[in-house]
């Protein structure tokens, strides 16, 4: 089974990079402050995580910092026992 961080990374690459956009995204890439995902698009990323892992992420926890990299997201998911 694919590791959580790979699932998240793959989803981010597929959904938030335009076809032909050859910028590199890795586990540490700044997603929000780096301009890959804005505050509106963050909502669809949150819906993805909630749907994929069957969890509810409270708004208070869905901060730009918590979503700012794949590693940060993985840490957030650990709070929901998703490893």
């Amino acid at each position: 089974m694919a590791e959580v961080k790979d699932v998240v990374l793959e989803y981010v690459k597929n959904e938030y990079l335009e076809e032909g956009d050859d910028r590199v995204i890795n586990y540490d890439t700044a997603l929000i402050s780096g301009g890959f995902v804005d505050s509106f698009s963050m909502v669809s990323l949150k819906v993805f995580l909630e749907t994929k892992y069957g969890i509810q992420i409270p708004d208070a926890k869905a901060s730009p910092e918590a979503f700012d990299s794949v590693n940060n997201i993985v840490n957030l998911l650990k709070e929901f026992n998703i490893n």
Partner: protein
Amino acid sequence: MFKQLFNMKSYEEELKTFSWNIAKEELGYKDGDNLNIGWHCTDRICNSGKSEKLALIWEDHKGEEKRYTFDDMRVLTNTIASYLQKLGVNPGERVCLFMDKVPELYFGFLGILKMGAIAQPLFSAFGSESLLTRLENAGTTAIFTQKKHLPKVRNIVAKLPSLKYILVVDDDGVKPLREGEYSFKMEQEEKVYDFEVYPSKAETPSVLHYTSGTTGQPKGAQHVHYSIISQYITAKYVLDLKDDDIYWCTADPGWVTGTSYGIIGAWSNGVTQCVMDAGFTAENWYKFIEKHKISMWYSAPTAIRALMKEGKDIVKKFDLSSLRHLCSIGEPLNAEAVIWSEEVFGLPFLDTYWQTETGSMMVSNYPGMKVKPGSMGKPFPGIEVTVVDLQTHLPLEKRGIVGMIAAKPGWPAMFRAYWNNEATYKKKFENGWYLCGDRASIDEEGYFWFVGRDDDVINTAGHLVGPFEIESALLEHPAVAESAVVGKPDPMNMEVVKAFVALKPGFEPTKMQELEIMNFIRKKLSPLAMPQEIEFVDKLPKTRSGKIMRRVLRAKEWGEEIGDISTLENDM
């Protein structure tokens, strides 16, 4: 503690003595003279002895910094203007700027104006479909873009016969450019120290900003070079810009605030401004203010509420003592945000109200004037603003009654047309008033209080989104049979897009389906247009003639009275 001395001495005094001639004199402009925004923001400032003064301090998300003096900016804008001219772009043609907040965006804007073309800035998060609609309508000749946005342009270029030049500002030569695509590296081009600026006049078209309406596709609000008269003086009086200020306007020049006050207002006043080309995090923003010693900060309620969400403790980690004046724009600033900013920054955010069409501030709170938290403030001197009856569109005599905000045409920055859409332009004027489309009331002391839109347009984080454009795009999704889009109240963004969707047979209303539709709209139109919530329904409320009754859905979302539903065809 010393009392601050503001540029506007007293609002009441200014009401008696104000004339647009003050701005004209200070800009050295006489009626009938040539008037070019590009020249006024660069060459004129250099001529006044500020060549070596910093015009722009730019920083990206990695903290990489670039600094440009007014003379650097003069030369680089000349270089861009000359490049476009040599390429074959003619005065009056539309040149689009489709970039993140990189220096080329700011200087490109002024360079385009210097050679007489019309600048058409578009938000870089727009998807291909949104881009196509706006470029097609404008008949755009050239577009400046970045490598990362190039695929979106390539997707649609075949449908745009007018688009002859695609200028890529950061091409690295790794992948070959295609026919019609040119590598333009601003700082590597041969510098043009002297350029004959296009002899534009007051009424020469300057900028085309697209804005959404309830029906039809977005409309291009066309402005003229004369707008600088309003933008200069409102930036001086409301933003209180002074020679030693370090100014930060957080708006993106893809929207009107980013050009009227993120470019023209600041630089026509010869003020140093900072630009951060990075996504929002509270820590980054506070760090930026501390590092660059920002003194004047013009931001938006959504951003302020996002900062409020992060709490007060984080503010204490930074030295923000350089701040001396704060203003806000985009959507009404709630009283809590004003009170919060006074508590944590020692300064209230002063709300300002204006629109893409108005080009400059119309109703504002002024430095030194009593602030009523939650109020929009009072009309800018020299501009007659009132509220008119929602039906008759005649001014309401009695105070405290809700009507539509209306302004007497004649202020310099007023839009002069909707591009290729005269009929809609004419509809914006009645009984000698420009109808803003927003509802408000005026209290006994003359303060305006915002109530909401008077139509179905959604104001999300200060950006107007038209339901029609989203509904049209939704219909292109294979699972969607029909849809209705409304604004839903949101504590952070004021409103967010909510879509009611009836699915075609064979499609299930699952969470994954919702996500797929959300992403479809995000990529096609923009993240702003993406429904933040989708409610799957069996059918939509319609009139007997088959028209979807959006207002019924909106009223439910807002907990308002549904009103007359006698024409409703079906039970909901």
